[in-house]
């Protein structure tokens, strides 16, 4: 750093404030320009930043489990920013970021495309606006009192049931595609009674992530999913791929 000009030496004194994130935007920009030209400074910043992380470690305190449930439920319907290009790596678990949008969009599409054989969706018939269904999903997931149960799904993937009061959302992730003439169907089981709670996506569209609102649930109910002939069944005809207790 013997090459430092007076100005560089001056800006360098900001290194502590920079590591602590205690600069305003203009000062930070100045400092980052300086940093770009000074390898020693970058090393020093690295060490100071790690020190700041240690300060944070010192106050670490577990968050209540409900925070975890809420965060995961919200993440399931939150699209990620796509204003940057992330390098594509050969990771088997890599999924397009756009997938998240599907969780809400799938519900919208389902309502639109089911216009013809809407019997299974009768409970949503009043929801003329497909958007309303998406909003209902979002409301349940955003409810701070929401509880979550999750379980693996036979055939692949997992399902998560988020319950807020008498409303629930079933969200499936990484689910298997179905034969062209089959659909997922949701059920509410209360004692001996099994009631359809609407259809999930069908055929190849069933693959991946989607979610559906399930209203009018009570504690102790089971929300189950089975594979049924396209159009749905009055009562389940196959063993459920997943059943979750409300």
């Amino acid at each position, binding site marked *: 750093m013997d090459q430092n000009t007076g100005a560089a030496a001056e800006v360098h004194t900001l290194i*502590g*404030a920079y590591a*602590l*994130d*205690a*600069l*305003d935007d203009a000062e930070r920009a100045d400092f980052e320009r300086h940093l770009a030209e000074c390898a020693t400074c970058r090393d020093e910043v690295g*060490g*100071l*930043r*790690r*020190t*700041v*992380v*240690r*300060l*944070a*470690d*010192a*106050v*670490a*305190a*577990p*968050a209540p489990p409900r*925070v975890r449930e809420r*965060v*995961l439920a*919200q*993440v399931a319907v939150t699209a*990620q*920013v*796509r*204003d940057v290009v*992330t390098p594509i*790596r050969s*990771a088997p*678990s*890599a*999924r*397009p*970021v756009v997938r998240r949008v599907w969780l809400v969009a799938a519900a919208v599409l389902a309502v639109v495309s089911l216009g013809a054989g809407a019997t299974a969706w009768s409970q949503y018939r009043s929801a003329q606006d497909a958007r309303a269904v998406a909003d209902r999903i979002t409301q349940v997931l955003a409810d701070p009192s929401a509880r979550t149960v*999750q*379980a*693996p799904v036979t*055939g692949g993937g997992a399902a998560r049931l988020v319950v807020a009061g008498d409303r629930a959302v079933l969200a499936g*992730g990484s689910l298997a*595609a*179905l*034969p062209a003439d089959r659909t997922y169907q949701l059920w509410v*089981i209360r004692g001996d009674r*099994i009631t359809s709670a609407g259809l999930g996506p069908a055929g190849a569209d069933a693959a991946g992530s989607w979610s559906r609102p399930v209203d009018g649930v009570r504690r102790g109910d*089971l929300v189950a999913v089975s594979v049924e002939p396209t159009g749905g069944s009055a009562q*389940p*005809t*196959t*063993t*459920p791929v997943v*059943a*979750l*207790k409300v």
Partner: protein
Amino acid sequence: MPVAPLRGPWRPRLVQPPPDTGGDGPDADGEEGLLQRVARGDEAAFERLYDRVAPLVHGVVLAVVRNPALAEEVTQEVLVEAWRTAPRFDPARGSARSWLLTMARRRAVDRVRSVQASADRDAAVGARELERDVDVVSEAVEIRLEQQQVRRCLDGLTGLQREAVSMAFYRGHTHREVAHLLDVPLGTVKTRLRDGLIRLRDCLGVA
């Protein structure tokens, strides 16, 4: 997928949530690796990352906002924001923890500032305010016994170094604000922040 035909009455077997084994392997990935997987929309990676960093985020937020209910809310916001903006994380610019920490502090400070009238803050300038800042650090640090080292190292700073670092870190004050609140020249605050951190770094043995 194969579909099993239904034989006899349907008795759904209740599937219990799987035990949390913490993922496919302990420390199979570092936090940076997890965050990069999160950036590609990997929800399982997010869950693992959550379990590692949530106490850090929550602790820092709690230290700043000092209200458990508000801290929960802000923690939730920060972690969802981390998911949302994970594609912007650049490992070349720092660790995943540092990135999350900055986000947590900024959000917590914003929240405190919007809750507290700015007039209130300005009026509160003085010894009382300052003492509170230092107290919070002391209390917060004392929460965990294994953090004695950090406590000891903070104690090893000069009074002004400790106050400046604490006000910047736990209250989210800029160095200008710290200078104003402590009524010392800006140049003094700059050097105290730097010297204080360097002393902490050496005391903690941070590489």
